[in-house]
């Protein structure tokens, strides 16, 4: 297991040294600072009496802070899931192909590290990086809104971690694709397709009746079935963020499904990598 961590840590070190990731963190920081500066909130006895963003009045009625923040957290969670995750996927799509570059992979495999450890370490490094980015952004926004409104809770951080599970499910097929064909573009495209199929998997019962009975319906049902219900996971994440109740068993099934999907793809990746000649 130590070798897995070492491969992962090397990947993290490389990510830290890459300007791209410095730029990503700088962008998140800048966005937080900008929102912090632009958002003016008047809080009176735990209620928000008015709010402006970039000088524009958002509302001037009195609302409970929790009622205002709920929709903000909800929108942020959806944004994080459907914009943040694809951005992260694009940012991480070349790690595995880069690791498998001719002249680099031969050297790595000549070291005392097993092939499955290379695969697991790469996955671990990327999902850790994604977790760090997600936590940084969600915790930053929580602190910012907490300072502005005086309302402190960890719902957005919790929701972002649920969203991160979605990224884990997205990156597993990306890694598998990169092992089969060493291409960052194909890896990113696989992530995109997984997201689309994951959303369709969430609404498959609604889509299926609209399809003609027969082969099309059969193919659709079986094509989306293996994918984790990413759309439902996004909704659960957003509901958690906004303070709505999400039944634990429902959340458990969604997270469990995404993790099982990731584990299965990771096992497939390790199998492919084990058999591959370089």
């Amino acid at each position, binding site marked *: 297991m130590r070798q897995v961590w070492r491969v992962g840590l*090397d990947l993290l070190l*490389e990510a830290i*040294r890459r300007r791209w990731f410095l730029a990503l963190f700088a962008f998140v920081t800048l966005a937080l600072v900008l929102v912090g500066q632009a958002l003016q909130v008047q809080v009176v006895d735990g209620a928000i009496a008015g709010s402006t963003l970039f000088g524009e009045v958002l509302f001037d009625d009195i609302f409970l802070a929790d009622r205002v923040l709920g929709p903000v957290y909800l929108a942020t969670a959806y944004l994080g899931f459907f914009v943040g995750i694809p951005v992260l996927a694009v940012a991480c799509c070349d790690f595995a192909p880069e690791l498998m570059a001719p*002249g680099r992979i031969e*050297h790595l495999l000549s*070291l*005392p*590290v097993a092939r499955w450890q290379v695969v697991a370490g790469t996955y671990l490094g990327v999902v850790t990086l994604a977790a760090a980015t997600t936590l940084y952004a969600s915790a930053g926004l929580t602190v910012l809104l907490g300072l502005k409104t005086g309302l402190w809770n960890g719902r957005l951080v919790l929701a972002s971690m649920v969203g991160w599970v979605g990224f884990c499910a997205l990156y597993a097929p990306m890694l598998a694709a990169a092992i089969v064909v060493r291409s960052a573009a194909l890896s990113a495209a696989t992530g995109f397709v997984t997201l689309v199929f994951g959303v369709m998997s969430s609404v498959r019962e609604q889509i299926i009746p609209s399809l003609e009975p027969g082969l099309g319906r059969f193919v659709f049902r079986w094509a989306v079935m293996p994918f984790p219900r990413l759309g439902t996971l996004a909704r659960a994440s957003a509901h958690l963020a906004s303070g709505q109740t999400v039944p634990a068993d429902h959340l458990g099934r969604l997270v469990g499904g995404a993790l099982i999907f990731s584990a299965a793809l990771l096992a497939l990746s390790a199998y492919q990598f084990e058999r591959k*000649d370089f």
Partner: protein
Amino acid sequence: MDSAVVVENLSKTWRPPLGPPQPALSGLTLTIPRGAAFGLIGPNGAGKTTFIKLLLAVARPTGGTVEVLGGDPEDTRIRARVGYLPERMHLPAALSGGDFLRSVAALKRLRPSEAALRVSMERVGLGTTKQRIATYSKGMRQRLGLAAALLGGPDLLVLDEPTDGIDPVGRVELRELLVAERRRGTTLLVNSHLLAETERVCDRIGILDRGRLRLEGTLEEVRRSSTHWVARFAEGAPADRLREAGFVATGDGWAFTGPLGGPDAEALNAALDRARAAGARLVELAPSSRDLEQVLSETLERPL
């Protein structure tokens, strides 16, 4: 004798997803004794890099067996004792030289101090550990790869085109470094296109061509694997009688080729007896010794 590498009947056929299978090695049998400096030479596409990849389990053989340092190269404990410098090493450009060495050391389960890392880099002629690899020249990258291969004092050092991109001064330094490693007891396996370099460093040579080992032995054996001996006779030796005895005039004496095409002692002595009986006085007899370029050219039966 204890062996560092033993391969038997080794074969490898690459199977690209598109296109026909490409045989790279076929029926290769070879033993490299421990402590030897083995030079693998041959033309492009001979299978040299494939052979090295099979030794390190980077690729898997189609047939045959590979044993490295007495074990299976798939075993990470065996690979921990091997240092490898690949051909055209691709280094992570975002890291510094020190970062890269630290990373390789960690994967080799070593914990070198900062001072030890600096010494490793200085040993290959690199000054600072902090410089980013992106700013390295080709030669500097090669030196860093070599420093990584030498980490932990490997028992077997596999170098694929080690002098690629290194200037002449650097080559001399590299040679000294390899000599020092040999003195330490390291087995060297060097694949290089630079035959003069190979000749200076290695004491055993293998010539690979089209996936087959065409010639293998000590440097002396290989250089003398000639089909003739060169004899020099005192002034006044009767040229016509020497020719009758089987000698052929060459630039530096009289060459004798045995009836089987090799340095056959019986045939040589019979020819010398005939020459002496005709009044020729032998002053020098030596097997023809050629440089590796000639050996390679003759072995491949085509000009280089």
